[in-house]
């Protein structure tokens, strides 16, 4: 076990009734103070991982720790804040009562709870609506109150499942800012999301899950490093000698050659040679795979080239594409 890990899962497996293999040996490590994003298509096992960490579901095999305590330890949850994807709060409670209720369930004393409740309602900008019943709230407002409820116990680890679901663009930005602020306070944040652009904006490290396994995990930079290339766009056709340097792409009057080099310095000899042959260089840019490209690669069946079937494996021997090895 890594001593600095806030979450450390080792070979965690989960098989539901009907021999549905939701998790097929998951290893995952999240360090203290980082924003970690868990990605994957529907049914990849993301929610099951979160539920196992939150003691909602029990692992069939494997072990691990959350905040240094074994999986299933209820006491550790007093320092964890969790907001599930499709959370449902009692409609008869007001926003303030909901936040206070979850503070009490975390064991907070009354005075501390009251002060934190007000502070969290302020943080999510819901104080003006705090005394109205949840039944009168919009989806976005419920999400804000849910965030306040998940933060009321001053958690060291915040686990959010699709936190921007149902929130308008302004609200999304506020939530992203909130996540960065929480990271600034030294909290560890675990985000489960489909929205790759948002993950890319806030996460220090990510993991991509495919069919119950972690396909890759690491920083976005690490994960896309192997795809790094240098693209040189020249006017007209490429000289014959340049054809073998890399993939060529013709675009009207221009041709682009993609050099498989990680550093701009490695591309300079090629540029010099092109210029020596009188070729006009229009553009020379470093290019790397986006998170979306990486994600699509993860969910593509290498044998057929098609997208892998969504959902967990159900008594089916086929395997997702082999994971890529990245040092975390």
């Amino acid at each position, binding site marked *: 076990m890594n001593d600095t890990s806030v979450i450390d899962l080792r070979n965690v497996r989960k098989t539901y009734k009907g021999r549905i293999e939701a998790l097929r040996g998951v290893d995952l490590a999240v360090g203290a103070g980082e924003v970690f994003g868990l990605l994957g298509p529907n049914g990849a096992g993301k929610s099951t991982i979160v539920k196992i960490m939150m003691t909602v579901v029990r692992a069939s095999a494997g072990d691990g720790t959350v905040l240094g305590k074994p999986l299933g330890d209820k006491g550790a949850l007093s320092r*964890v804040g969790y907001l599930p994807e499709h*959370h449902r*709060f*009692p409609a008869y409670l007001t926003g303030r009562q909901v936040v206070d209720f979850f503070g009490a369930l975390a064991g907070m004393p009354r005075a501390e709870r009251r002060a934190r409740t007000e502070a969290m309602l302020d943080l999510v900008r819901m104080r003006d609506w705090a005394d109205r019943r949840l039944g009168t709230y919009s989806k976005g407002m419920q999400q804000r109150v849910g965030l306040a409820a998940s933060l009321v116990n001053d958690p060291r680890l915040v686990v959010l499942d699709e936190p921007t679901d149902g929130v308008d663009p302004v609200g999304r930005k506020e939530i992203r800012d909130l996540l960065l602020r929480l990271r600034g306070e030294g909290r560890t944040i675990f985000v489960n999301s489909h929205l790759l652009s948002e993950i890319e904006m806030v996460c220090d490290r990510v993991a991509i899950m495919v069919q119950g396994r972690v396909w890759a995990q690491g920083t976005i930079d690490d994960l896309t490093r192997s795809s790094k290339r240098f693209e040189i766009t020249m006017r007209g056709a490429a000289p014959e000698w340049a054809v073998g340097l890399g993939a060529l792409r013709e675009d009207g009057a221009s041709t682009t050659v993609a050099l498989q080099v990680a550093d701009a310095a490695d591309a300079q000899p090629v540029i010099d040679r092109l210029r020596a042959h009188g070729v006009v260089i229009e553009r020379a840019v470093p290019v790397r795979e986006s998170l979306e490209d990486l994600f699509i690669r993860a969910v593509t069946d290498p044998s057929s080239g098609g997208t892998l079937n969504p959902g967990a494996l159900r008594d089916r021997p086929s395997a997702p594409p082999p994971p890529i090895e990245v040092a975390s």
Partner: protein
Amino acid sequence: MSTALPEGTYGRQTWAIVVAAYRELNARKLFWLSLALSGIIVVAIAGLGLDEEGISVFGWTFESPFFNATVVPPATFYKLLFTNLGVEWWLGLGSTVLALVSTAGIIPDLVSGGAIDMMLSRPIGRGRLFLTKWMTGLLFTSLQVFVFTGACFLVIGIRGGSWEPSLFLAVPLVVLFYSYLFAFCALVGLLTRSTVASLLLTMVFWFLVFGVQSGEALTNWGRTASAMEIASYEGEILRREAENPKDPFIEGLLEERDAQAEDDATWRLVHNCFMGVMAPLPKTGETLELLERLLVDRSGIEAPERERRGEGVFGSNRVRNREVRDEIDRQAVGRSLWWTIGTSVLFEVAVLASCVWVFRRRDF
């Protein structure tokens, strides 16, 4: 090893769940409707009165030489109204149905997607969470019975002139009675996650328990009457043998006694079957009747007048209905608290233990 929680956490968690349950009750119209109906019944009881001339209804007196304050003391009249109308019919039936309708959704709501994740991800054990939520389901009945009994206490004190604190025994007994049903309701709610299923199946269960109890009461009546008939035959045979051993009627009496003995064996067999089925089930009716027994003991309420007609049973005149009923009343008083409460609580504990077992093991 489990992480230690801050001191006072258990109390704060329990109190938070209870307060949330109270807020839920406040938000339910049925709770207030039930309280309003309780109020109407209390007003109706208070509107009735007995004086020396007869019975009065909201000031209008109906003269009666058979039913007036000289025949039945006003305090006893109100107490009988409380136990028979208030407890048996209103709290034991009407209010219980409303309570079931109101609370049947508590466990299905707890285990519904989105809600259960929020609860289980808190530092509270599953067993304690389930049992605390279950107990909040008793809050509806507890508040209803307490308010109703308190109002009746005032009515009996003011109108009947008798201040009887033992009336408040109704609170634990009615809540206990309701808890039998609510334990079953919780089990169904947990297994099916459906409010409608838990409500309907609990009603069916209650009806079945009522059916078994009625069957037991009916066969007990037959068994008791049959035994009394045989005892009557034997008494007469002994008397005739003592007077004249060669009395020609003795032979006939012996044949009739033997025939009755065969019936008696059948009654006993069927009654024993009902007792066997009834033994592990909650004694809903007997638990409420216990209140009447306790109030008779503690506040001197006379049991309501039973049927006093003099017909014989089994077509003979040897044993009268009244005698059989008196004997059955004696048997009822003789039944132990262990039989009435103990076996019912055992049933409840077994059902709740099953619930906790399922709740602790289930993935949500």
